[in-house]
């Protein structure tokens, strides 16, 4: 270029004066508000539990139980968060957990001991995720339909394997992990796994190219494609990831219950989706956090626990959960529209 080398630094193309820093700050503030409000809800629940049943609820054992119970669905929710953030949905998580848990506890599998159970559970989860992913990414099926079909077939296969019977685990090393006083590094094993999965999930989402691609595909799939991202392959990986989480969750459930049943993981898909939504994940994709989803899980499990301690039936629990979902989404819509 010969003459007007670079355009004037202070050009006319300015952001309207309201933009710039304030907009940026509100974004940060809004993310914080969301997390803080979830923490606030959790704190309020703990107060309620502490007041209504001070002795039972605040007992260390009970709090451990809350976390342990939350671990299984928590691991599933981490995978679900990724899928929803990409604009997809996985309705088959509960069924995959069931199938993985029964396949991993058949007499034949148990012959291979601890490793056999763990390996099978994970492999079945990943296998189901692979089928989901291929159907959705390369078969062009809508995620809702593909995973609905998987839900039906995986449950059916689980029933076929068990014939409705509960498969008792006889491996001591597995059962030991489910004992009340089992600790690894001073943490109950299930809670430890949940924590590790959460941390790894957070790192993948926030610190890796995989996480970036997930957000890009969910935020604007066409833009992602035109930017050179392999959208289909990314979708495949995401359902694989969800399947992997289901396999891990199935293993945790085997430890927790000492058995495998075809009724395991019933309605996990709804709990996981609900937890992710409460946590601020946009159902249309492109926005969400692992921390939010995990807080969503903890809120749900805490409610269940408080209601159980207060001898309230599960119907009341369900109604409360429904109300919380509605309230959470309404609050998020408000915070989103105030900018």
């Amino acid at each position, binding site marked *: *270029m*010969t*003459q*007007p*080398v*670079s*355009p*004037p*630094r202070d*050009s*006319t*193309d*300015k*952001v*309207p004066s309201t*933009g*710039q*820093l304030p*907009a*940026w700050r509100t*974004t940060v503030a809004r993310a914080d508000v969301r997390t803080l409000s979830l923490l606030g809800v959790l704190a309020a629940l703990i107060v309620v539990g502490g007041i209504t049943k001070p002795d039972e609820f605040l007992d260390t054992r009970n709090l451990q139980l809350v976390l342990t119970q939350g671990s299984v669905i928590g691991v599933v929710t981490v995978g679900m968060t990724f899928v929803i953030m990409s604009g997809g949905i996985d309705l088959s998580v509960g069924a995959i957990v069931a199938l993985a848990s029964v396949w991993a506890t058949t007499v034949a599998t148990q012959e291979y001991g601890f490793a056999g159970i763990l390996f099978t559970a994970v492999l079945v989860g990943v296998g189901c995720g692979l089928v989901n992913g291929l159907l959705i990414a390369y078969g062009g099926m809508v995620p809702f339909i593909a995973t609905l079909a998987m839900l039906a077939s995986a449950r059916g296969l689980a029933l076929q394997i068990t014939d409705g019977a509960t498969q008792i685990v006889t491996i001591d090393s597995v059962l030991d992990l489910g004992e009340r006083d089992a600790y690894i590094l001073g943490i109950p094993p299930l809670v430890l796994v949940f924590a590790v999965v959460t941390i790894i999930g957070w790192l993948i989402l926030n*610190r*890796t*190219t*995989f996480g*970036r*691609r997930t*957000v*890009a595909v969910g*935020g*604007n799939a*066409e*833009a*992602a*494609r*035109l*930017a*050179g*991202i*392999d959208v289909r392959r990314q979708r495949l990986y995401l359902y694989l990831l969800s399947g992997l989480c289901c396999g891990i969750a199935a293993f945790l459930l085997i430890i927790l219950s000492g058995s495998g049943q075809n009724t395991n993981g019933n309605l996990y898909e709804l709990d996981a989706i609900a937890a992710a939504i409460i946590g601020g994940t946009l159902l249309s994709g*492109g*926005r969400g956090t692992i921390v939010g989803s995990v807080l969503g899980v903890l809120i749900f499990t805490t409610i269940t626990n408080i209601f159980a301690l207060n001898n309230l039936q599960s119907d009341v629990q369900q109604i409360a959960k429904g109300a919380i979902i509605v309230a959470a989404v309404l609050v998020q819509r408000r915070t989103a529209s105030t900018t």
Partner: protein
Amino acid sequence: MAPEPPLLSMSGITKSFPGVRALDGVDLDVQAGEVHCLLGQNGAGKSTLIKVLAGAHQPDDGTISWRGEPVTLRSPIVAMRLGIATIYQELDLVEHLSVAENVHLGHEPTAAGFVVRGKAAKASTAALLKRLGHPEVEPGRLVGELSAAQQQIVSMARALSHDVRLIVMDEPSAALDPEEVDNLFRIVGDLTADGVAVVYISHRLEEIRRIGDRVTVLKDGRAVAGGLPAKSTPTREVVALMTGRNVEYVFPERPATPRDADVAPVLEVQGLAREGEFAPVDLTVRPGEIVGLAGLVGSGRSEILETIYGARKPTAGQVIVGGSVLRPGSVRAAVRAGLGLAPEERKAQALLMLESVTRNVSVSSMSRFARGGWIDRGAELGAARAATRELSLRPDNPSVPVRTLSGGNQQKAVLARWLLRGCRVLLLDEPTRGVDVGARAELYAVIRRLADEGLAVLLVSSEVPEVLGLADRVLVLREGQVVHTAPARELDEHRVLDLVMEGAPVASASSAVDSPAAGGRGPAS
């Protein structure tokens, strides 16, 4: 002229969306019984204007009067009650309902307030269809089974099922055969004879001459001409209003020495074609060269660009970058070979609106900042900052969300993406669409500087002065065919406009009643 107030009078209509001012003080007067044509390029603001008129968008500023009374079109229902009906280009019909159900959707004839009287609905639908010249359409058939033309008739019947005073038709002829267009014009004639006003949007100038009474031309969200006589305004003048400059832009100077002809082209397109969109195209772009594609909407300019990029699969021909043939229909192959696209629809096709500038810039070269998938965010931010600074993107803070940027700066973010990726060929589709007039010169300078640094640039623009001012070489397109190639210096705006319009094939079919001056050869004003 009319003693009574106009049927519709919009004045000073302003509407902004984040990052772009879609309408900037538009005036529009429509008289009862007239066909008022709305002309303008893509993005000129036509869609936004008719959405305001339909009550689907609320204007930020301006007033709307209906038969002399100020009104607020709070919602589509309010507009419909006044008698304003809109037939969108993307027909808003429910495919799985019958014709009659679609026509009466939302105002079904009922008994006892809620029982739908199906027979009455069918009878009145049949009457409407007959009036529209399509008695063969069965009111009981599913809309999804009908042809595009028939669906449009259904959409029109729905409009007429209300007590309609004004019908907005958004490119109604786009999907129609010549005979169907004739029928459409007959319908429009009948409507206006009944005193109904028609706002008619089309890119086909010869149609406007045939049925239009007056023309309003929109450009960059402004009405650059209002109420011109549709039949007597010279075509060239109308096109010049649509495509011309309304500000004297400062274009950067071309390099003093023209690019060496023996530098090997980095992009070679050989016989590339897509059936029904554009005929085989040959073109080359050398490093440092800006090649422009000029043409009206529908000339195939964007399609050519997207096909080169692999976003559409060609039916013939090949694209060669740096000597190797690209896998057809693969965006990833194109990006890997060094192509970068700044698409026409920035928000829909390029930007991740929820994300920061940094992430929008780095999205195509993430792996460069990653080891084993792990992103070095410091390096990423640094690189994004360097790239955006080089383009003087404002604000100078790549952490802000991209949606808070102005149109021009959003475009710079897209350019920075490819700059960071280190691409060799930049494909620019309407690079100044939605960019404030004041910011354009700066964007032009940026594009020229990138070319001077060795990038090959292929530019598509609907604004002829933009192509002539920025490009080194220009290919003129008409109806999917390259009709002329020449250095930009040897062309002027009038010559290009003539080429763009000259003897357009559609015109030959429908310009029988038209004056022979349609080619724009007559002395312009």
